[in-house]
């Protein structure tokens, strides 16, 4: 049953009906759109208006200038230099044809960048929000910097800018004490509840070790703020207001740049430490650790190859041996044993001990360093010639606990609080300590070893300098490193008395005088000729290996024949002038051999430098040594070639 085809009019009416249905649908949709617009634009308008305001204004931090570090005379140790750098913003760079990669590739053609730099930049860009500017190249030359600026149109997202960056003009001289700054790492932020917003600025530099780290709160200053209008991707459109931050406080250290430089140079390539301390105030005048390194490398982000060299060097250039090193003090400890015995009244200056070259106790034989023995020895001679047997004997009499007590009184086994990293506490053992740590009974052999600063006794060069200062003055001197903050001198509390009777100290002091000036003194070769700067001291040679009985039979192997790392440590402590002590010194030369040969000459040069404020005058040395001394000084590469009368240099 076929229907007839509809007429054109009927067909047209059909379309009209359907079109009307469609227009009803369209009308409904248009009405819905209008209603929605009404809701947004009229009903909820206030809410959205508020949101729009928040979008526009952003507060940015202005990093403050970091506080500078000066030596006691005002020589700049750590300053800020203008840093021409290039930052890149992902949101802009990625808009370019070829994206960030292309922009970086082009940048590489203009400025020197290693593949590593590019990889680092890409990683940082990946990690941060697209609108945060990431520094990709720092410390550009003016030439490179301006070339980047000129090529701006071809480098979307790249902005050349001038910032401040830490600079250490004296390079390695203060590397260990002052440390260095570096970009904030995730580790730095770990465990910090509300980190200073400054720390969240990419590549913001904070102190990593040393004074830079421990005085960070003073040096950092506080952030300024910039109210800026930003667009949705964070690009700054204009600055609305600006509040400058507070620059970090300048800090003056107790160190003397000239003396420090001399001492650092004098230590040379040895693995050694030398610290000079003002015996009255406790001011550290020099604290050198060798070999050193260039802290500027770390500020720039050290190349892994360079870092590997530093890490793998068996002389440990990164370690601050002045405070970090814990060495057996060897014979430099003998003053402690002597003072303990004197203070307890076990001995007096006249007490004599017979040294046949060994000491027998409990069936064991303990040797003196001089196989033939010293014969009958009193206190002064025991120090002068460093007789071991004398101390084996008196230590037995006074007991280890009293020795340890005296050691602590003199500053050993105690952590001296200084703004430096990894300060070693050392070790001043007694019976309780051994019971606690080794769960073993204290034995006679332990006392004998401890009596001459071997065995469990460990000290840092800093502790030895404190000990020497206290012996020299009879006062409880504390070391200090910070002289002034923001020009305000730190107060020095007068050091309290040590509590050791003066005549007993004097007895030990006489012994130390004899070490350097006595006819048979172990450090006679390092005596000072100048009457006004006569020096007292004590040598020490610390064994780092056991000498077996078998070896003693066949003859002890000479140090020079041993591999470097098995040779003895050479130590020396001393002070000057003898009559009215001014400075104390402690020197440790790792695996340097004998204290008198390796450490004492350095200590003398260092003390004389501190006393004269620069390179010691030749007239201070015994006449026969002057040509050799002069030749040695001429070989040193010194930063300050003149004496202390030169105006402080600001580099």
């Amino acid at each position, binding site marked *: 049953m*076929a*229907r007839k*085809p*509809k007429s*054109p*009019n009927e*067909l*047209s009416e*059909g*379309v*009209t009906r*359907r*079109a*009307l*249905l*469609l*227009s009803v649908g*369209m009308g409904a*949709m*248009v009405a*819905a*759109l*209008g209603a*929605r*617009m*009404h809701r*947004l*634009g*009229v009903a*909820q*308008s*206030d*809410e*959205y*208006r508020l*949101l*729009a305001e928040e*979008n*526009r204004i952003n507060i940015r931090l202005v990093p403050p200038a970091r506080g500078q570090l000066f030596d006691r005379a005002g020589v700049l140790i750590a300053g800020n230099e203008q840093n021409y750098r290039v930052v890149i913003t992902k949101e802009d760079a990625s808009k370019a044809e070829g994206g960030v990669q292309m922009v970086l590739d082009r940048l590489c053609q203009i400025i020197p960048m290693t593949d590593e730099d590019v990889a680092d930049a890409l990683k940082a860009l990946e990690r941060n929000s697209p609108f945060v500017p990431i520094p990709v190249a720092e410390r550009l030359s003016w030439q490179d910097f301006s070339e980047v600026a000129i090529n701006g149109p071809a480098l979307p997202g790249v902005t050349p800018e001038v910032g401040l960056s830490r600079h250490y003009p004296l390079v390695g001289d203060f590397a260990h004490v002052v440390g260095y700054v570096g970009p904030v790492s995730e580790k730095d932020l770990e465990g910090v509840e509300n980190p200073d917003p400054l720390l969240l600025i990419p590549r913001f530099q904070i102190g990593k070790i040393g004074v830079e780290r421990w005085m960070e709160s003073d040096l950092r200053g506080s952030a300024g703020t910039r109210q800026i*209008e*930003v*667009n*949705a*991707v964070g*690009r700054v*459109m204009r600055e609305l207001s600006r509040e400058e931050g507070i620059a970090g406080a300048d800090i003056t250290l107790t160190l003397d740049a000239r003396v420090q430089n001399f001492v650092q140079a004098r230590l040379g390539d040895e693995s050694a430490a030398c610290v000079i301390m003002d015996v009255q105030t406790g001011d550290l005048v020099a604290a050198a650790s060798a070999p050193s390194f260039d802290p500027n490398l770390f500020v720039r982000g050290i190349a892994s190859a360079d870092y590997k060299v530093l890490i793998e060097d068996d002389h440990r250039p990164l370690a601050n041996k002045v405070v970090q090193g814990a060495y057996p003090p060897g014979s430099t400890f003998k003053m402690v044993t002597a003072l303990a015995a004197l203070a307890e009244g076990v001995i007096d200056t006249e007490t004599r001990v017979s040294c046949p070259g060994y000491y027998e106790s409990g069936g064991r034989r303990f040797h003196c360093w001089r196989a033939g023995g010293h014969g009958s020895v009193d206190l002064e001679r025991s120090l002068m010639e460093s007789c071991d047997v004398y101390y084996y004997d008196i230590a037995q009499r006074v007991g280890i606990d009293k020795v340890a007590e005296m050691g602590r009184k003199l500053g050993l086994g105690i952590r001296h609080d200084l703004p430096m990293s990894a300060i070693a506490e050392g070790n001043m053992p007694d019976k309780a300590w051994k019971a606690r740590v080794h769960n073993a009974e204290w034995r006679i052999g332990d006392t004998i070893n401890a009596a001459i600063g071997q065995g469990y006794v460990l000290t840092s060069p800093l502790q030895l300098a404190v000990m020497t200062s206290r012996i020299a003055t009879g006062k409880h001197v504390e070391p200090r490193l910070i002289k002034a903050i923001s020009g305000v001198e730190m107060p020095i509390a007068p050091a309290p008395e040590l509590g050791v009777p003066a005549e007993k100290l004097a007895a030990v002091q006489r012994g130390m005088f004899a070490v350097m000036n006595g006819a048979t003194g172990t450090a006679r070769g390092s005596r000072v000729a100048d009457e006004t700067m006569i020096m007292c001291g004590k040598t020490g040679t610390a064994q780092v290996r056991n000498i077996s009985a078998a070896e003693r039979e066949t003859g002890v192997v000479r140090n020079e024949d041993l591999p470097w790392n098995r040779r003895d440590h050479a130590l020396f402590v001393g002070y000057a002038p003898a009559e009215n002590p001014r400075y104390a010194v402690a020197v440790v030369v790792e695996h340097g051999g004998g204290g008198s040969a390796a450490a004492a000459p350095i200590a003398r040069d260092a003390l004389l430098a501190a006393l004269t404020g620069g390179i010691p005058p030749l007239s201070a040395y015994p006449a026969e040594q002057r040509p050799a001394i002069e030749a040695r000084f001429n070989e040193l590469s010194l930063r300050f070639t003149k004496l202390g009368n030169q105006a402080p240099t600001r580099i």
Partner: protein
Amino acid sequence: MSFFENRTASAPTGLAKLLHFHWPLVLVICAIATLGWLMLYSIAGGDFSRWAEPQMNRYFIGLAAMFWIGLMPIWFWNLTAWPAYAIGMLLLVYVEFFGAVGMGAQRWIDLGFMMLQPSELMKVALIMALASYYAKLDDRLISHPFWVILPVVVIIAPTVLVLMQPNLGTAVMTLAVGGAMMFAAGVSLWYFGAVVGVVVGAVVGIFATRGTPWQLLHDYQYRRIDTFLDPAADPLGAGYNIIQAQIALGSGGWSGKGFMQGTQSRLNFLPEKHTDFIFTTLGEEFGYLGAMSLLVLYTLVLVFLLWAAVRNRDRFSQLLIIGVAVNFFLYIAVNLSMVMGMAPVVGVPLPLLSYGGSATLVVMIAFGLVHSAIVHRPR
């Protein structure tokens, strides 16, 4: 309906045809386009040459095309319907393999002076082809299954190609325009009921397969749907566009912040602010009143078109005009509901306002066809 209808009884010839153009429609179109140039000028921060000037040039090219097409007889366009469809398909296949990649999708052919989106052109060709098909088809066969499947294939083929680009927005629009034309042609409502049932099933299917290896949509498309459902969940990521757009619209208030005073768009908070999101700038700077004025202008266009379709007795012309009207409506509905947070973000421009060559040109070509139908209607 022509404005001068009463004065010209017989079929016009030559340039007299110009008198029979739908001048109120032309006027409204020009008004919308002018509003677009103003917005583009404002978004560029007062830079005329950045977007406003090229857009003006394209508009005038489009206007010329509209008049030229309008002066050609409607039977000519009826004849060219299927060739146009074939060319459109070829172009779609071409971009599938050689097209320029923009915004993660292959959509463009570089013509030198402009980037052509064949998927836009294809919609007009599809409208013409379907109108031509139903004009010839015996009305008794309209709801015959075979004669229903044929146009469905004609619709699905380009839709699939567009979907593969991938351009979800245009694919959905192509499908909807085709469906609306079949609806207008009088295909039985049972078919549409069945389609609605299938669509509901498909939606369920799409969400049920999510996360499985055989999921039906791209991950970014799923994310867009998520973002639509809860834009606040990811305010700096996927939901950013929608939230920023709504802030811009809402902060305009009743009468807006004033011309060139919109902070949202000026400060670049708005994505695609000169193209798909241009309405937000209008809402921000001219407020609710400005936005509603545009809506009224668009509604006028739709009313003019639908009225012209109803008044025309030529079946091809009728269906052609309805197709164009539905297409125009879908642009507006999809774009505005997207910008106002009522639909997922799909790349659909606002006709005559958004910066872009293809859409402007295609819309003007469609209006040219409408005019040809109006001028050459049977009297």
